[in-house]
């Protein structure tokens, strides 16, 4: 029986080091059941240096939460979930898969994975889909997260590792440009690494909202640049324009380490600062100041450009990330020992989760599923004929759109995702799920998506399992078991192993994480994300293992020192221009941006069940500028409706000058009537498949008196009411 553990936080990609210790049994408590209660403490680790945020501190309270699912639940014809045995559950799934595939073909079964799964689970899920379910239809929620940055990174550098340097490198930088990233709320301990730049007056935050991160630029800490939503690409072109025209580039770097410079310079000629001001609302002098600060930093203490979902979660997200990369290349930042470009990965295993085969177009080791050599290698490791590995499937939004459609998916497995809350155009997604013949959801709670499932399977939480994750800097770390899961709860590796047997899958499916990792090592060997030199023993000794880590090497804390991962070793600059799609906000509509709160994580399926966090942020609040509110007769705390052609949200308004007058901000952690994704559009980036989360058009009105009266009587948060 494990007795506490040194592990990492269950939530974001900073993967703060934490120690879980069994608490002293409380003397006064009646001995109903001697459950092990865990104390959480921050642990010294380079990413968090002992710090934790509220989410981390309170994470252990979910282990014994009363709402935990501890038995497989089958939805009856009355719509109510009833417990069944694991044997029954496995038989039902096997039958559903076989029936569906007999009638509609193999691709009628699909898998939707998550960026919170361990490397072992993510790897095994890809293998399970292709060999046991024999389907190409697998993708995951990381498509909503890192896909644009990944596509841009691959295009420019030939490889996609979120931060190609250890996060502590940032400590000595004199300038850091944060593009659409609100780390002060999404990964608070990260803010420590911005202190050096703040002290030097060089923290530049680009965000339409004066987010807590943007507020770090006050008192001489740096600049807050506040473009109107959806115009980040033009802003970046404007900054690059100034760099080129004022002679702030690094000509040696450009000539020896990049290609495509001339075409990029031509594409920048028309983005002079005053023109960019008219597109973005950012004053021309701020555009110039930003360019000059970055250039000055590059020549002195070091300059970093970090991008986040704010600039990436758009239909032009890949091009926007590319514009950021081009700027960094013009300044000669990537591959330098004290400067760089990176993207801040969001989900706990958002990095590892995008490397080992959960993506529709990918095989382990960040290999392309269409590459014959990659297919041959993986087929060899799996011991199967290459023809058994299906081709590329559909990216997440397309996969979800295909649910229940002719030639679409009719039987779906969901692992570590809550698409009813987190996917764009949530109404349409819910409708798709309801049109399925069979929906299996693995979760620890009856999340909004699990509530839709025919079959809910209870799985282990982070403190109950072993495995590895890869954090935002590409470092592979160990997750360790601190206590045994409740009886009836199973690990997904066990589930896949059982089903593989019942579905007579070829190859092997181990339920032991270390055995799976050993196989992952072989499968990743020679790929871009090569883990072949890493094993559990060295991770347990505390060694810092950054991929690529080929067998016999010592890993790669910093990429690009000697060259980029293209054949000629050069980084590729690709000219990009803003889309011609013009958005009109003429008829009283506002730009709706969605985002996060410090207290909640992703769809809130976990954090909304933590009393302390729910008490702090019990419901969604729409941030609206007082001037914008005044003309709509909206006061602080009023209920408002936010509507567009896709749906309606009903929530309270919070008046704040931190948002632009033309923009409202709604957190996306809440379900039901407060679900921000009822309003987002399922249009996607043509390269990455990333949906447009950050800029929707919406109309905000004060809610009618009747609705308010009903709410006042119950006095409950809306989503709590819906659940009851």
């Amino acid at each position, binding site marked *: 029986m494990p007795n506490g553990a040194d592990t990492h936080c269950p939530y974001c990609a900073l993967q703060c080091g934490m120690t879980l210790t069994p608490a002293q049994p409380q003397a006064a408590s009646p001995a109903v059941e001697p459950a092990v209660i865990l104390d959480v403490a921050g642990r010294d680790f380079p990413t968090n*240096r002992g*710090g*934790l*945020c*509220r989410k981390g*501190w309170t994470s252990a309270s979910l282990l014994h939460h009363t709402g935990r699912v501890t038995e497989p639940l089958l939805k009856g014809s009355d719509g109510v979930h009833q417990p069944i045995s694991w044997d029954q559950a496995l038989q039902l799934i096997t039958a559903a898969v076989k029936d569906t595939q007999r009638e509609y073909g193999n691709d009628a079964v699909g898998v939707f994975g998550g960026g919170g799964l361990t490397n072992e689970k993510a790897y095994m899920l890809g293998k399970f889909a292709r060999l046991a379910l024999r389907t190409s239809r697998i993708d995951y929620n990381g498509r909503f997260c890192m896909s644009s940055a990944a596509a841009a990174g691959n295009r420019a550098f030939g490889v996609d590792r979120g931060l190609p340097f250890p996060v502590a490198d940032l400590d000595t930088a004199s300038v850091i440009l944060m593009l659409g990233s609100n780390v*002060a709320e999404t990964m*608070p*301990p990260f*803010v*420590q690494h911005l202190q050096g730049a703040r002290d030097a007056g060089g923290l530049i935050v680009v965000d339409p909202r004066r987010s807590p991160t943007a*507020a*770090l630029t*006050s*008192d001489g800490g740096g600049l*807050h640049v506040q473009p*109107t939503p959806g115009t980040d690409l033009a802003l970046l072109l404007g900054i690059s324009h100034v760099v*080129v*025209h*004022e*002679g702030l580039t690094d000509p040696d770097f450009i000539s020896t380490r990049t290609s495509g410079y*001339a*075409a990029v*310079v*031509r594409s*920048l*000629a*028309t983005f*002079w*600062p*005053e*023109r960019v*001001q*008219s597109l*973005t*609302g950012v*004053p*021309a*002098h*701020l555009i*110039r100041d930003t360019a000059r600060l970055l250039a000055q930093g590059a020549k002195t203490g070091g300059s970093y450009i970090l991008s986040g979902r704010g600039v990436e979660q758009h239909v032009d997200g890949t091009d926007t990330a590319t514009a950021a990369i081009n700027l960094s290349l013009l300044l000669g930042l990537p591959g330098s020992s004290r400067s760089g470009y990176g993207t801040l990965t969001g989900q706990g295993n958002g990095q590892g989760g995008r490397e080992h085969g959960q993506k529709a177009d990918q095989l382990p080791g960040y290999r392309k599923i269409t590459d014959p050599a990659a297919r041959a290698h993986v087929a060899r490791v799996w011991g199967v004929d290459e023809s058994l590995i299906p081709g590329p499937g559909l990216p997440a939004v397309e996969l979800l759109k295909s649910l229940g459609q002719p030639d679409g998916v009719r039987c779906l497995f969901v692992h570590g995702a809550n698409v009813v809350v987190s996917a764009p155009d949530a109404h349409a997604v819910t409708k798709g799920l309801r049109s399925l013949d069979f929906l299996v959801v693995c979760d620890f709670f009856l999340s909004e998506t699990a509530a839709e499932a025919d079959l809910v399977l209870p799985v282990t939480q982070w403190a109950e399992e072993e495995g590895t994750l890869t954090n935002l800097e590409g470092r592979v770390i160990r997750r360790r078991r601190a206590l045994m899961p409740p009886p009836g709860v199973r690990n997904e590796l066990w589930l896949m192993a059982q089903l593989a047997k019942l579905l007579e899958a070829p190859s092997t499916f181990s339920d032991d994480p270390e055995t799976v990792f050993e196989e992952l090592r072989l499968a990743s060997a020679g790929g871009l994300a090569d883990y072949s030199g890493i094993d559990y023993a060295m991770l347990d000794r505390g060694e810092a293992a950054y991929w690529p880590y080929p067998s016999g090497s010592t890993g790669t804390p910093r990429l690009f020192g000697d060259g980029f991962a293209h054949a000629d070793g050069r980084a590729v600059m690709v000219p990009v221009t803003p889309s*011609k799609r013009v958005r*009109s*906000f*003429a008829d*009283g509509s506002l730009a709706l941006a969605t985002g996060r709160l*410090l*207290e909640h994580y992703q769809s809130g399926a976990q954090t909304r069940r933590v009393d302390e966090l729910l008490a*702090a942020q019990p419901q969604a609040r729409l941030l609206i*500028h*007082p*001037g*914008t509110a*005044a*003309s709509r007769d909206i006061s602080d705390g009023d209920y408002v409706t936010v509507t567009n052609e896709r749906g309606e949200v009903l929530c309270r308004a919070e008046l704040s*000058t*931190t948002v*632009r*007058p*033309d923009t409202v901000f709604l957190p996306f952690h809440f379900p039901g009537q407060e679900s921000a994704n009822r309003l987002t559009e399922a249009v996607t980036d043509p390269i990455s498949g990333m949906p447009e989360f950050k800029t929707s058009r919406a109309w905000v009105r004060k809610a009618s008196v009747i609705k308010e009266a009903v709410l006042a009587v119950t006095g409950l948060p809306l989503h709590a009411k819906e659940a009851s």
Partner: protein
Amino acid sequence: MSERIVVVGFGPVAARLVDDLLPAVRTGLVRLLVVGQETEAAYNRVMVAELGVGRTTADALAMAEVSALESDGVDVRLGVAVKRIDRARQHVVLADGTSEHYDRLVFATGSRPVVPNLTGLNPDPTGPVLPVGVTALRDLRDAEVLRSAVAAGQRVVVLGGGVLGLETALAAAEEGAQATVVHNGPFPLGRSIDRGSGSVLTASLRAGGVRVAGNARSTGVETAGPGGSFSALLLDDGSAIDGDLLVLSCGVRPRMELAEGCGLPVGTGILVDHHLRTYHEPHMFAIGDCAEVRCQDASCVECRTANGPSGLVGPGWRQAEWLAEYLVVLARDGQSAADALEALPKEKPGVVMLKARGIDLAVTGDNLADPWDEELLEAGAASGRPRRQVSQWADPEHGRYVKMTTRGGVLEGFVAVGMPRTAAELVLLFERSSELPADRSLLLRLDGPDQLDAGATSKDPQRTVCRCAGVSAAGIEDSVLEGCSSVAEVSKATRAGTGCGSCHDDIKGFIEKHFQATAAH
């Protein structure tokens, strides 16, 4: 055989058209010939003044590269003019004597500077030969002339108080030249701004080191400099403004002789319909400075109120983008498919922003009405259409001025001087036709110092000090009262400071305050 498109002119607008046609050229759907009179491929002419004062390089202005275009299959002829167009044979005849067939022809001939009627200047509008030391600042060679004058710290006289003239004078002054702007109205920028903003602008120009000579009517140039070069601008009151270089900035005129010469109807520019087609010749088009969109439908309200070419590059680029799509659809799917495309949307009045480091100015639309100008405000207010409203802010001492003219809360015009954030917001609100906040002063406050650190110094005990752990000021004070005397102890007791650590100084402050207070007792 695929269609051959000939583009006459290779300026910034033609460059955008060529860029957008490239995919169709690569696939062989169309063939493309571009004829440019200058020896350089397209460059961003809008920034010629910046080049002239040494703030950028010619390389950085380039918008096209001949070798890249040629490798994509584009035929590019530079340094050669089109002499005439033979519509019957569908030929363009070049100055080198060759002639080329076209299936579609696009005029992108742009405009040329207006050379004012002054004694000492050649009045021929199509081929002026200017004396040494006089330039119209239109192309790279003109920029070179200005460059030498600025580098030598010479006296630069700018004739004309338009945007380009002001930009040139300001930049030249900032880079070390002695600059004078000569204009003939009470204030620069003429009719596009009102008296208040004009006065603030003039003061700002002077503060920026530019001499401003208003209400000045020039009559001639004196060429008594070395080698017969420019030495002074002569005014009608008998005075003279001495200088080493005269920059003519008196506006531009569309270049339309080629179109006229082959019998196409012209007005202020080459007349085209909403599909940018010339009258009677639907396979000939015009875009950019040389084009005047005015259709032949007498009932078209849009065209009845149109003002001819704007002289701004933005509308030209939108025309180029639109036309590229039209031409591709035409070549691929035929005439009826192309005609089914939505016509080019109506242009809003352009927003003019001064490209200057020392002065922030943005202006658009009609700004003549004052807040109490009943006649002007009521104009156009009929059948339910609301009257105009004007809000105004003037702070000449600090170089700030804003006027917003709205109808139904939506901007019809505005001018903003010395208020960059306000100006930036107003531009967006205007471009998007969004309703202004009812409290207009909100927009003014965007440039106030109170915007930056709102709430940071609140004394509310319930305010959050540690955001990461969600600990209030009261919570920390309580822990100090209960005996915590270091940040580490407070962190242990309350979790405050256990996340990002940026509140450690605040926590120290609480501890120090407490112990100072205790020590004082």
